[in-house]
């Protein structure tokens, strides 16, 4: 019972957070100088009179509070508004990009966490040995490098020199399979995924790895680990026990990582020409396409907040010591 009460309260908090977030972003984006029409006015493609006309058409000439009331009203009916840049409903713009981003980021996040936890456990278990020091440094190197740079190196090596993989994009326009395996469904997307996922994993893996390693080192010194050894548990069983008990910090981090994955990774998307949320987000901000910018940030924030909620709820199950009061 206490759990459901706790869950309900946390869910309510989450909902309030999201509403505040929407308000905050609404105000925030409008504090940036210029509006969607100034960007078009830009390099002289739109004369002033036309800009004024555009403002009227798009309702940007109305007082801010009126614009907000309209926006909030539409929001209540699930309408996120119209994109200024694309002149299509925001969801129509955001959905395909979100899907593309998830196609890219799901393997990145899953592999990063699985590899990070596995290697982090392994390194933490080998604490104090030479191999652990080398491993930790090796894991940190790609993290210190810009993903942009890693991407270019991977492209130069595997796409440009060796020609194993395409140079970018998500699909090849007009891909004609030549052999049986190329006819497999998703073959084309899969081969386009390899390099960006590799670049993403190389840079994203280090955090879960180091977190897991640190947590494992702490757990290793717990009394119950000595006791487990005394009970004659095999080394593998001991390591699994340590991993299980060191899992909470990395789980918390993973929630955030998954949440941010909804926002895509701009640089990764630029280097590998992946049509995803990151680029949409950056472009919509620089184009002052408020509705799209708000929606993209909101989706990301909502994912982060919701996943945090889920993790909070899962804590009690993963660690029975935690009680919901």
């Amino acid at each position, binding site marked *: 019972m206490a759990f459901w009460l706790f869950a309900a309260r946390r869910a309510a908090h989450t909902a309030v957070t999201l509403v505040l977030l929407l308000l905050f972003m609404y105000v*925030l984006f409008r*504090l*940036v*100088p*210029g509006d969607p029409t*100034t*960007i*078009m*006015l*830009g*390099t*002289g*493609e*739109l*004369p*002033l*009179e*036309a*800009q004024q*006309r*555009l403002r009227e*058409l798009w309702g940007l000439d109305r007082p801010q509070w009126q614009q907000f009331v309209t926006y909030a009203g539409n929001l209540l009916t699930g309408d996120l508004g*119209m994109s200024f*840049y*694309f*002149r*299509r409903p925001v969801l129509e*713009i955001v959905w*395909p*990009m979100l899907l*593309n981003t998830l196609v890219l980021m799901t393997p990145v996040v899953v592999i990063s966490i699985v590899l990070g936890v596995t290697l982090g456990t392994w390194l933490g278990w080998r604490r104090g040995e030479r191999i652990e020091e080398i491993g930790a440094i090796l894991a940190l190197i790609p993290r210190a490098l810009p993903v942009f740079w890693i991407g*270019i190196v991977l*492209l*130069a090596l595997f*796409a*440009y020199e060796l*020609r194993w993989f*395409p*140079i*970018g*994009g*998500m*699909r*090849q*326009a*007009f891909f004609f399979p030549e052999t049986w395996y190329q006819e497999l469904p998703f073959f084309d997307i899969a081969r386009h995924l390899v390099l960006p996922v590799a670049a993403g994993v190389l840079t994203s893996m280090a955090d879960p790895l180091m977190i897991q390693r640190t947590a494992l080192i702490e757990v290793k010194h717990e009394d119950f680990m000595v006791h487990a050894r005394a009970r004659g548990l095999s080394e593998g069983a001991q390591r699994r026990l340590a991993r299980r008990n060191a899992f909470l910090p990395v789980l918390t981090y993973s929630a955030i990582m998954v949440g941010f994955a909804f926002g895509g990774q*701009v640089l990764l998307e*630029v*280097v*590998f*020409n992946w*049509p*995803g949320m990151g*680029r949409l987000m*950056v472009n919509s*901000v*620089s184009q002052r396409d408020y509705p799209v910018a708000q929606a993209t940030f909101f989706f990301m924030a909502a994912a982060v907040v919701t996943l945090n909620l889920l993790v909070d709820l899962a804590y009690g199950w993963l660690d029975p010591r935690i009680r919901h009061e």
Partner: protein
Amino acid sequence: MGSRNESGRPATRDLRARRREVLKFLGAFGLTAPSAALVSAIDGALQSASAQAAAGQPVPRLGVYLPNWPDQVELWRQLSREWQPLGIELDLQQGTLDTFVSQIVAEQKLPHMGSMSWGGAPDRLDPDYFLSEMFHSRRTARGGLNFGFYRNEAFDRLADAQRSEMDPAKRQQLVREAQTHIVEDSPSIVLFHRDIIHAYNKRRFSGVKPILGNGIGFPYMPLSYMDITPLTPRKFMRLTSIYDIASLNPFLTPEIYNSTTLRLIYATFTTRDEKADVMPWALERWNIVNPTTVDITLRGNTKFHDGRPATAQDVKFTFDFINKHRFPALSRIYETVESAEITGDLTVRLKLRTASAPFTANVLGYAFLAPKHIWEAVPSNLATPADWPNDKPIGSGPWKYVEWRKGEYLQLAANQDFFMKPKLEGMVVLPVPQMESMVGMLERGDSDMLGWNLDMTLGERISRNPELEVVRTPTHGQHEVRLNLGMAPTDNKAFRRALQHVTDRKKLLDIIFSGAGVVSNGAPITPALENWANPAISAPEVSVDKARAVLRDAGFTWNAQGRLVMPSA
């Protein structure tokens, strides 16, 4: 109490300070970091500039805005060095295109000077753009491109006169004379006109046609793709561009890449030929009856992509539709054309509001033929038909729409009913936001033509590949340093002239773009546009001595440290 007054408008300053905080916060997301820095830098520069440049005082540090692009950064590295002998110091502030538009054009916050490069959009081929838009005093209003506040009545008169002069020879005279004012008054240091460098795969395609101001890969001028001939069994060409289109509705966007790409589907009434002269396109001919009356004749047997014939009805509908809905993106059309009247099956008489010399190029070359039967059926519940998705664009142009996957590709098929038949069966335009990938794709053979500006280094690398051909095309686009005539010392003509004398345009072009381009003669019209350039003018001679002499004659002096000192009152 007294100190409160010094700050001027405390409320405004608070707001600004707060805005800066917000921008900083946004900057944490990596989104607007440069603009946040720039906003405060510009605010600061504006406050200090007017206070410092007092008579008899050393010239203050000159505020310079520059976009954060590599060529611009290199430009100012050179200029800082070259201008040093005059005893002036520069305070460089980098920004994005975004901050340029919002701060300098919209908010009119140009510091002492700012550099910019203007691309070769097709409408800018007409001299009216670089003269009137940039230097007419009318354009000093907020949002105008005369953001350096140049005002010269004599120039204004010439700029106005050339705009309504329908006789080409007389107009040429006026345009050339107007340019002498720009060179004399130096409101801008026009540097050079950088060549467009494109590349394509010559083993696979031939018949590539470079067009002045367009190169071979840009969609600005549809003629450039018409003669491209496949040399291999694959009959469609893959073209890469840094941009993607945002919409399929031709009435919506004023953005150059999107609007010109859609005009491959929607034929404009006129277009430009290889020498950038205006030629009929959807039209068979036009006839200027008088300065405000133009008769236009549609080509016979024109069909829309859905097979319906195009007639004068559609032409009239197009202009009426634009006038009725006043699409902001097409303002130059509804502001020029008053009415359209059917005079035959294929002929329409256009009444203009005012005489407009750029009419055939910039209005008929920008307006496109819209099928009446489609657009009159657009749902009326939209605020404007420009908001209609137009998912299956039907035009009468040389290319038919097949498919658009946002961020992935736009596929077009040849329209064999067009009067000039494309030799390709189709084109696929691939947006690739990163130059390295674009070059890599061309080198690997994943694309056939690179439709974005290369620099010389990449151009040379590509030209070593035996399959690839690099094509350099002159353009009317330009790099310039705009001077702010609204504040000292750039309001001083002698000071501006002196800067011209220490600016070695040839050397800058060589260093920044390996010489690939045309050096400016000081006027904003490229010498490559022989029709409009004034052969009698030339940029001031490069000479430090001359520059110092000009300054000395105007009463400037130098102090013991070598700093330039303002003339005493």
